[in-house]
């Protein structure tokens, strides 16, 4: 597989894993947020509904209380008593003590003439006959006014009670302290954005709102949008902020209590939760992405390594298959060559025999004949050796297991080659581990292996160099490495060096069977042979021999 295909595989893994991880994560996050915000919203609505109801009740109670007190007074005193300023003052002080929030108290006769007054303004003697509320109270007997400015030119509202005394009527009228009343209304407002105020049927402010507008100003509340009980509206202002407005008509049906609040303020903690959730999801996402990328990269690299190893194994398998097939063929060929070689050798021998006859002795060229025949014999011998090596090897293919001291075998091999090496000024250096155990193997075959590799190393160097022979114990093998500082094996030759008849030596100097036989012997012994070569630096052969204990042979 090429690099780009591994990259593509990695990408597919990452995308699939991320999709599978993120889809439920985001879905869960979204659903949770939606549910929580819905719950929050319901809670906020409930809160504001409760607030407007309870506050409306409070205001109703406040008005009812004041109305009741005034009615009780009006019902128990006579006109003559109440127009006495002293009595009126005492009554005023008494009701302020008991209930409070009264600014002034006045008595008006049926002609609208203000007959008695207690309070901060100078209103005595004014005639109210033309005031709108005067008609109302004369008709209904009880009247709570809207806020108006009236004679005192200051916004206020009054409670007026008509008393029927014999044939005459008189009116007890009190002004409610607008500040106290406004404070009661405003107590329903909460937080930084909350507001609470009253509007009348025309939508005019009856108390001063917290934001935008003053008393008696036109509010943006449309009273018709508020029904019988409690109504909650949501509006979005120009800044895009959501604002909840709850309205409830007071019992007198003339005033509408409005409590409003920005949703965002109450939703603040929800927003905090949402931000926390987003942060957790973000962190989780980063973790997932990192983990996915790292593990995928790791897995793909493992896969790549495994593939590479498998390819290598396949190549080795191919190599050994190839060598086995070549070996069979070579052995077959060898058999067929031996017979003609035998004939050639006999024929040359016969010719030599004949040359000894007298007739031929006189020939001028007899020496030439003799030399030529010798040459033929030499080359038959050369061919015979090749074939012999192959057949000899074939005969020896079944290894004989015996106790083998690998170090001893190496030493013997080195001593065999020492002279040859010295002649070429090549040092043979042995660095043998003292821990090499005796193993069950085939000594003569191992010797053949070492002999082939070391003599190849010497031949590769040519003159002046170093061949190092090392032995070491591994977990399950004994490793023998043979390194030379020769010219190295050219890359294009590296894949053929174990092939039979492959040689780089001069014609006639090498059969090209050495490494092939070596390879086959090591395979048969259950070991392995490999090499590493760098042009200009040298070659290292590593032979791994299975560490079979002598008892298991």
């Amino acid at each position, binding site marked *: 597989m090429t690099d780009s295909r591994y990259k593509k595989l990695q990408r597919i893994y990452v995308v699939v894993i991320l999709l599978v991880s993120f889809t439920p994560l985001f879905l869960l996050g979204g659903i949770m947020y939606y549910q929580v915000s819905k719950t929050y919203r319901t809670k906020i609505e409930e809160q504001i509904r409760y607030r407007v109801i309870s506050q409306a009740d409070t205001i109703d109670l406040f008005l009812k209380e004041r109305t009741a007190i005034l009615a009780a007074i009006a019902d128990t005193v006579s006109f003559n008593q109440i127009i006495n300023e002293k009595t009126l003052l005492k009554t005023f002080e008494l009701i302020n003590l008991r209930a409070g929030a009264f600014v002034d108290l006045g008595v008006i006769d049926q002609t609208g003439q203000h007959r008695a007054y207690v309070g901060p303004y100078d209103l005595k003697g004014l005639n109210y006959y033309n005031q709108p509320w005067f008609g109302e109270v004369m008709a209904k007997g009880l009247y709570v006014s809207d806020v108006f400015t009236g004679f005192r030119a200051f916004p206020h509202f009054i409670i007026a009670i008509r008393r029927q005394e014999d044939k005459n009527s008189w009116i007890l009228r009190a002004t409610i302290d607008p500040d106290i009343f406004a404070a009661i209304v405003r107590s329903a407002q909460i937080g930084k954005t909350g507001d609470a105020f009253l509007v009348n049927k025309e939508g005019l402010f009856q108390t001063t709102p917290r934001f935008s507008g003053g008393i008696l100003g036109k509010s943006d509340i449309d009273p018709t949008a508020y029904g019988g009980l409690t109504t909650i509206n949501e509006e979005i202002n120009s800044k895009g902020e959501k604002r909840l407005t709850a309205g409830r008509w007071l019992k007198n049906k003339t005033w509408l209590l409005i409590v409003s609040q920005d949703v965002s303020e109450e939703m603040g903690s929800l927003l905090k939760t949402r931000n926390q959730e987003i942060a957790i999801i973000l962190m989780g996402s980063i973790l997932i992405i990192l983990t996915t990328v790292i593990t995928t990269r790791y897995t793909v690299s493992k896969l790549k390594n495994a593939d590479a190893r498998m390819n290598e194994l396949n190549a080795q398998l191919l190599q050994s298959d190839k060598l086995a097939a070549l070996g069979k063929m070579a052995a077959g060929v060898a058999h067929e060559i031996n017979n003609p070689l035998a004939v050639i050798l006999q024929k040359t021998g016969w010719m030599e025999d004949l040359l000894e006859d007298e007739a031929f002795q006189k020939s001028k060229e007899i020496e030439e004949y003799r030399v030529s025949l010798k040459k033929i014999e030499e080359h*038959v011998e050369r061919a015979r050796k090749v074939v012999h090596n192959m057949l000899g090897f074939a005969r020896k293919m079944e290894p004989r297991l015996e106790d083998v001291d690998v170090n001893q075998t190496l030493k013997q091999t080195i001593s065999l080659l020492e002279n040859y090496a010295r002649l070429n000024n090549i040092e043979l250096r042995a660095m043998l581990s003292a821990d090499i155990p005796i193993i069950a193997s085939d000594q003569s075959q191992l010797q053949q292996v070492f002999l082939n590799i070391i003599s190849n190393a010497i031949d590769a160097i040519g003159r002046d160099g170093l061949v190092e022979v090392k032995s070491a114990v591994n977990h399950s093998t004994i490793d023998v490495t043979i390194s030379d500082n020769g010219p190295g094996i050219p890359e294009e030759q590296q894949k053929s060096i174990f092939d039979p008849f492959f040689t780089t030596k001069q014609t006639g100097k090498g059969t090209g069977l050495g490494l092939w036989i070596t390879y086959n012997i090591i395979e048969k012994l259950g070991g392995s042979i490999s090499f590493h070569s760098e042009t200009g630096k040298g070659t290292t052969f590593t032979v791994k021999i299975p560490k079979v204990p002598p008892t298991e042979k």
Partner: protein
Amino acid sequence: MDQFRTLVVDDEEDFLVTLVNRLKKRDIDAAGVKSGEEALDLVKKKLYDVIIMDIKMPGGMDGIEALREIKKIQPLVEVILLTGHGSVESSIEGMKLGAFDYLMKPIKLEELIPKMAEAFEKKNSHEQKIRTARIKELMRSPLRVLNEP
């Protein structure tokens, strides 16, 4: 070297004729045949000292088979197996059947003749032993005859 009677068996005519000629030239009594069957016919008619036998021969009888049959007729004759085929099985089989040696082609005459001589020596000493044993037997038997009541 004593004169010894030799038979060469090989299906390769060029090899057979040349080898026989060269042996004759060295005053060795040599004959050649091209198959195991022919060899068997000759063995039935004439005594040999040494037989040089190829193993792989086309036709009915190969060298190993011929060796087995010849040994039945002339147990004392020494057979040298000479083959272009080196196989462990055939060599073991041959040695088991009493072959003197197992040699690989091509072989120089200078190497072959000493082997033949060794084989001849062995055959001679073998015959000598048998003869001695027989003489001893003969010498003992009249006594035994006499001793018997």
